[in-house]
C-alpha cells in the first residue's frame, strides 16, 4: 500500500460513512454537519487529484455558504420537526432497493469501461492558469462564464423574492 492509497481509503471511508449518516440521522442539524464532513472529504479528493482550485472552492462555496444556508433553513423550519418520529417515508424499502440496484448497475457499467484501470499521467503545465485562461478566452468557455452570471442573477432575484414575501 502506498501513501496515496492509504489517503484515498481514509478519505473514501470518511465520505461514505458521513454520507450514510446524512441520509439516516434523525436530527437534521446533525445531518447538515455530516454533509459538511462529506464535502470536506470531497475537497481532500480534489487536492489528491491536483485540482487545487476546486479543492478550495469546494470549501468556500459548499461549506462556507451552502452548508450554512442548510443549517439556517433547518433552524427556520424547526417547529414541527419532531426528532423522535421516523424521518423516512413508508416507501423506504423500495428506495433502498432502487439505490442498491442503481449502485449495482453503475458498478456493472464501470466494469464495461475500457480505461477503468488507467493510471495518472503527468500534469501538463500549470492547471490553475490553464483553467483561468480556458474559462475566459473567447474560443473556449466564455459563453458558459457569462451564462453562469445570468443564472446567478435569476437565482438571486428569484430566491430573495420568494423567501421575502410577506
Amino acid at each position: 500500500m502506498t501513501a496515496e492509497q492509504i489517503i484515498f481509503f481514509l478519505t473514501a471511508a470518511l465520505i461514505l460513512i458521513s454520507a450514510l449518516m446524512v441520509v439516516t440521522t434523525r436530527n437534521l442539524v446533525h445531518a447538515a454537519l455530516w454533509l459538511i464532513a462529506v464535502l470536506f472529504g470531497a475537497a481532500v479528493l480534489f487536492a489528491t487529484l491536483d485540482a487545487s482550485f476546486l479543492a478550495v472552492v469546494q470549501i468556500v462555496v459548499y461549506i462556507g455558504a451552502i452548508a450554512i444556508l442548510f443549517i439556517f433553513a433547518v433552524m427556520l423550519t424547526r417547529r414541527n420537526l419532531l426528532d423522535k418520529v421516523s424521518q423516512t417515508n413508508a416507501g423506504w424499502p423500495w428506495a433502498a432497493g432502487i439505490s442498491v440496484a442503481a449502485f449495482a448497475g453503475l458498478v456493472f457499467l464501470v466494469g464495461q469501461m475500457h480505461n477503468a484501470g488507467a493510471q495518472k499521467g503527468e500534469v501538463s503545465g500549470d492547471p490553475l492558469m490553464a483553467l483561468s485562461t480556458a474559462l475566459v478566452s473567447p474560443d473556449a468557455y466564455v459563453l458558459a462564464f457569462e451564462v453562469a452570471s445570468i443564472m446567478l442573477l435569476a437565482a438571486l432575484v428569484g430566491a430573495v423574492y420568494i423567501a421575502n414575501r410577506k
Partner: protein
Amino acid sequence: MEFLTDPIKVVYDWLLELFLGWGWADWVAVLVIYLLGIVLFISAVMVLDILLVWVERKVVARFQDRLGPNRVGPFGLFQPFPDIIKLILKEDITPEGADRVVFNLAPILSLGSVLFLWAVVPLASRIYGVDLNVALLYIVAAGAIGTLSIIMAGWASNNKYALLGAYRMVANMISYEIPMVVALLIPTVLVGSMSFVAITEAQANYWFVLVSPLGALIFLVAAIAELGRSPFDLNEGESEIVSGYHIEYSGMKFGLFYAGELLHAFTFGGFIAALFFGGWHGPWAEQYPLLGAFYFVVKAMLGYWVIMWVKYTVPRIRIDHMLAFNWKFLTPLAFILLMVTAVTHRVLLDAPTWLYISGMFLSNVLLAWITVEGLRMQARRKREADVSAEPAAAD
C-alpha cells in the same frame, strides 16, 4: 554566513543529513522534518498569541486611562501565564441539554481555523510555510470554517442568548466576506497570481497601498467586521444578549475562543501588511530573511494596533445599520473599485512605472471623490425631503 541568507534551507539540509545518517528512509526523514517545522511554527504562533493577551490588556488600559497589568514581572509582562494556569485549572462546565460532541468541536475549530491561516503567510523571503498557488482562496476557506464553528457553538449550547449571538455574528461575517473577497481580488488582478508569496514579492519596488489605497481601506473595514470587533461587535451586546455565542463556555474552551479571537486580529494585521504594505520588504530584507521577518512582525503589529485603536474608540452600531452599510454601500463600492482597477491596470500594463502608479492612484482618488460627493448629495436630498415633510407633519 549561509545561515543568515537562507536559514530554512540550512537547517533543512542539516537535519536531512542527520536523519539519513541514522539510516532513515528518504521520505520518513522529509516527513519528520516537515512535522518538526510545523510544530515549531505553530508553537511560535501560540507563544505570540500569549504575548498578545498582554498587549491587548495593556493597550486597552492605556486607551481607557488606566495602568493595566503591572504586578507580575516587568510591566506585567508575565501576566498571561497566571491567566493560562487559571484557565487550565478552572472547572469546565458542559450545560445540561447541550449537544456534547458539537459543543466540544466548536472551540477546536474556532482556534484551528485561525492557526490554519498561518500555513500560507510569507514571513520573509524564503521563510514561509508553503507557497500555495491558491493561497488567497485558502484564506477565505479557513474563514468559512471559522463561521461554521460559531454557528456550531451557538447551536450546541442550548441557550437562547448563544443562538441569537451566533445568528448575529454569522450574519455579520458572511455579509462582510463579500467586500473582503473583492478586496482580495484587487492584489490578484495587480499581480496575476493568487499566491501569497508572489503577491509579497511583487511589492519590491512599490507597495500596493499606493496603487490601491481604496482597496486597502475596504479590506481593513471588512477585516474588522470579519473579526467581530467593535464597531461590529453586536454579537456580544452585553445589555441585550449577555456575551454572545460563547456564553456557556468556561475554562479552557472559553480560553480557546479568546485566544482564537486575539490571534485572528493579529493575523488580519499581518494580511493587511502582506497584501498592501509590502509584507517583509524593507532595507536589507532581501539578503537577510530574519530582518525581513522582523519587519513583517512590526508591520503586522501596526495593523493590529489600528484594529485595536478602532475597537476602543468607536461605539457599537445597530444590526440594521451594519447590514445596510455592507449591502448598500461597501459591496457595490468594492465591485466598482474592482472594475475600475481591472481596466486601469490592463490599460496601463505596459506604461512606465511612474505613469502606472500615478494613474492607478488617481483612479482610486477619483472614485473616492465621486463616492463622497454622491453620499453628500444623497444626504442633502434626504435633509431637504425631511424639512419639506416637517411642516406637513406639524399641522
